[in-house]
């Protein structure tokens, strides 16, 4: 055992799994809207909450939502919470510098969009409650290819970041029930 080379003690095994899945109708419409700078959510016919994007159902009432329940929400909102992530080098990691990971509650929405970059102020000056507006990528650079039914990568291919507008912060009451 003592003269076994280190590389002989392990077996390298790269597991690669590829999935091809049709985007659900509700996410397909969401993707269509994003390419046109429109953000579409759905309003639950039972509780009235607005989810962005639509899941095709209200996860609290467990009732379906249809295209008829879909509404557009503005591209402005509030940072409800954030963290600054120091990237760790792991297989597939693309980040090299500390980055913002923020939840944004768009005006009129009850759900938040997670994992967003917030720009316009230094990271050290970020606050929950700051009002932001989407900075859209130029039309020709927009892509919805990263969107999946899993719910990850919602607006990432079309919105570059959410930019602080400079308006007064939203009071805590406006977002305390929508932190995540």
């Amino acid at each position, binding site marked *: 055992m003592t003269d076994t080379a280190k590389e002989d003690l392990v077996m390298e095994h790269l597991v690669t*799994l*590829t*999935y091809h899945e049709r985007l*659900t109708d509700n996410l397909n419409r969401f993707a269509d809207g994003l390419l046109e700078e429109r953000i579409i959510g759905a309003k639950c016919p039972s509780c009235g909450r607005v989810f962005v994007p639509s899941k095709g*159902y209200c*996860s*609290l009432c467990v009732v*379906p939502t249809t295209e008829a329940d879909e509404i557009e929400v503005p591209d402005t909102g509030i940072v409800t919470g954030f963290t600054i992530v120091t990237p760790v080098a792991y297989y597939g990691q693309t980040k090299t510098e500390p980055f913002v990971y923020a939840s944004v509650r768009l005006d009129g929405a009850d759900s938040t969009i997670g994992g967003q970059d917030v720009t316009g102020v230094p990271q050290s000056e970020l606050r929950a409650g700051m009002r932001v507006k989407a900075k859209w990528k130029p039309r020709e650079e927009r892509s919805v290819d990263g969107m*999946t039914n899993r719910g990850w990568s919602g607006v990432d291919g079309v919105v570059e970041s959410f930019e602080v507008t400079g308006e007064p912060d939203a009071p805590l009451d406006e977002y305390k029930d929508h932190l995540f």
Partner: protein
Amino acid sequence: MPATDIAIVGYAQTPSLRDANPSEVQLLVPTVAAAIEMAGIGRREIGFTCAGSCDYLTGGPFAFVSNLEAAGAWPPISESHVEADGAWAMYEAWMRLQEGDIDTALAFGSGKSSPSNPSEVWAQQLDPYYLAPLAPDPISLAGIQARALLDSGKATERDFAQVVANSRHNAASNPNAQLKDAGASVDALLAEPYLRNPLRKHDCPPISDGAVAVVMARGDRARSLCERPAWIRGFDHRVEAHQPGVRDIRSSSSTALAARKAGYDGGPLDVVELSSTFSPQELILLESLGLAPDGPTKVNPSGGALAGNPIMAVGLVRIVEAAARIIDGSANRALAHATSGPLLQQNLVCLLEGE
């Protein structure tokens, strides 16, 4: 002694579909709702929920968490998940009901096989050292098993084709089945080319998406909810060694043991629903249960897994198909089977009776 006064009182399933447009959780939302509605209970009444699914199949870590939204998890519910077929989720929920402090439980299973490549995904359940890097897909393994069965003299290729013809015939009257052919003929099937000698394409399951849910209740609650509940008289599962080479893959000792432990005494059975995804496996399973393929027990009246194979739901679908026939009065005693792992490594048996 496990309680024998727990029954299925509600169920629902999606059809088995080659490529469902809705996402997995979108398949589950109406399915779970329909099972609860059939049971006639309020959603918030459910004492315990258990779900079965496979993140590797869905294509993302913690994918199963989304599925829970179909159960309605706010305010918080008491729930669990198994990375396994819904049949095992039902088993866990049945075990929970044994505590006696809750009256009702919900179990469901779901899976979409359409987005992935079976050769890739199913290698992940295999021994990572000796098997997974070879990527022996389920059809290749089943082909080896089929050859072993033929060599033993216990079955012929004609027997395999007969299993398929039976499945296609039975599936023709099942609105949820995917592959149906009331006119399937053994000779026509035998004329098809091999896919994995000695298996032909029809000896193998289709690729399927689907979801299924059941509601169970205890004792008098069950009687008040359902005119003729499907009583779970026994429920057991057993597993064999993993390496195919150390097992006898021509028979299913774990199915025989699970059936015995579930209380199946070899007496009359009206219906047996087996999760044989390859035609030779149906013969292996029947033998392990001491049943003849053409005897008095109806084998896979739903068409079985050869007619539709929504992995992670297919085993629970067998239980539902058996329970449905008890509830509608067409059967008194039924046995349902679910399987997991390569080549029938792990097997579950559920024994159901009408009162």
